[in-house]
């Protein structure tokens, strides 16, 4: 394992300290070392947006704290939910008096910790409502859609929720828009190599050389199939075959597209993939109105890629277009 860290048990602490030193204009500390906030948060009379999750997915989650995005974030260990207290303290850091929308991903740990944190907040009359992202198509069949994991679709959900809150919407309206966003979003990941948590010191799973895992999760959760690597164009087709029929996405749909590397995939390969995705979507009569290509939601140094698509209505389109400024996503 050839990696850069000091004490493997404190990589998160060390990295958070670096983030705070590097970006004082975007990230501010709170009393809880595992909670960061926008310098402007809590913003009076705006619904607070909170998220949180395990580390190792940078720029997710803390990189989406910013204007028009997330107000406060709870930071977990590598690939592990933040504590209930961290979520709770993030709620407090984000609350401007109109309640807090906690928009997070569907993982057992996050579910439990958020549940405890929301209970705790209620004791202090802080209203928190939640939307749990479940955009990862291969993680469960459609009739068990509530079991699906949340992946890079969360970013679009935060963008929508953050923009809606900026418009002055109340908590229920923000929650409704964020829920609509994730309900209209589908993702799939392809894994090409595993990753190593520094404290573990060895890869968290294995993929045979020359093979790819279709439907892999952000922590290496197994996918639906392992097969010899196909050419980029066929990988693109395969990914679309999984997500297009699931929503379904159809002719004349306006869509947002997010292609994210999992960490170690060369950026040029994302563009090789996009070249085909664009071709197919155009041939199918879909209209890509928002496009994000890069390392938006990673898994340490895993190789692979995720594709996320959202079907837009005029509201989602408007909210995705609204200005935002965070480390991971900026709209001017």
């Amino acid at each position, binding site marked *: 394992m050839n990696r850069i860290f000091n004490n493997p048990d404190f990589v998160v602490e060390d990295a958070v300290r670096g983030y705070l030193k590097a970006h004082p204009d975007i990230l501010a500390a709170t009393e809880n070392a595992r909670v960061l906030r926008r310098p402007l948060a809590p913003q009076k009379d705006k619904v607070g947006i909170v998220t949180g999750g395990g580390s190792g997915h940078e720029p997710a989650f803390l990189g989406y704290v910013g204007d028009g995005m997330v107000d406060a974030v709870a930071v977990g*260990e590598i690939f592990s939910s933040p504590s209930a207290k961290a979520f709770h303290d993030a709620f407090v850091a984000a609350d401007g008096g109109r309640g807090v929308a906690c928009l997070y991903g569907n993982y057992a*740990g996050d579910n439990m910790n958020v549940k405890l944190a929301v209970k705790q907040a209620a004791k202090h009359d802080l209203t928190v409502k939640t939307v749990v992202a479940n955009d990862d198509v291969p993680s469960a069949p459609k009739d068990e859609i509530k079991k699906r994991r949340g992946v890079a679709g969360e970013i679009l959900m935060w963008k929508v929720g953050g923009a809606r809150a900026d418009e002055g919407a109340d908590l229920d309206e923000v929650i409704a828009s964020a829920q609509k966003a994730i309900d209209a979003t589908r993702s799939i990941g392809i894994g090409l190599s595993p990753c190593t*948590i520094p404290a573990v010191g060895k890869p968290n799973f294995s993929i045979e050389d020359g093979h790819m895992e279709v439907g892999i999760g952000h922590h290496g959760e197994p996918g639906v199939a392992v097969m010899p690597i196909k050419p980029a164009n066929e990988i693109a087709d395969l990914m679309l075959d999984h997500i297009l029929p699931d929503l379904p996405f159809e002719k004349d749909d306006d869509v947002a597209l997010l292609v994210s590397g999992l960490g170690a995939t060369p950026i040029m390969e994302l563009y090789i993939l996009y070249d085909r995705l664009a071709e197919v979507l155009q041939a199918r009569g879909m209209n890509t109105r928002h496009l994000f290509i890069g390392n938006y939601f990673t898994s340490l140094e895993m190789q692979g890629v995720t594709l996320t698509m959202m079907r837009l209505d005029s509201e989602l389109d408007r909210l995705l277009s609204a200005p935002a400024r965070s480390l991971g996503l900026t709209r001017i």
Partner: protein
Amino acid sequence: MTASIAIKDAGGLVVELIEAINANRGWLSEIDGAIGDGDHGINMSKGFTAAGAKLGDPLPSLPDALNTLSETLIEDLGGSMGPLYGYLFSSMADELEGQERLDAEVFAKMMHAAFEGVKEIGSADVGDKTLLDALYPATEAFDEAWRSGKDFAESLDTMSAAAEKGRDATVDMVAKVGRASRLGERSRGVLDAGATSCCLILQTLAKGIKQRMQG
């Protein structure tokens, strides 16, 4: 040999739990690596070690030590283990409230409370290939042994054996919750990490209580 121990002198049981977890850190992660993300030992070790640093000297009473452990797990650890083991230990501590001695009756209640606590927060069922699959048979076995006339120490031995059998039985289970559940049938054939740590915890508790009864 007395059939109970003094609660206020038994905070050291938590120290022994911490030591047991740290000693098995690598093994627990390895088991988790087969069908999970390979961090169970790290998670447990980090949470338990942090709790250890807060226990203080002299050691607090057993319920205080359990509560310190529970709070540290819930507040600082996160992950799944924070809430699950946090609830497990606070539920145990709750049953010690107002007690001076830990005997078989109290221990049986602690086990039931622990089981209910984990079940409530985690919404998993027995058979889902989780730590419940060590906790539940252990709870039942202790009850039955005690009711059938075995003494506290013998009942603890029965419980330890049942925990181990429960742990080993997870090999044949298909995971229904947690990360491993996405594997479906492919999750069969290996131990569950949480059941393994739970068995370790229960056996360490049993051993520590028995030692204190002898002492």
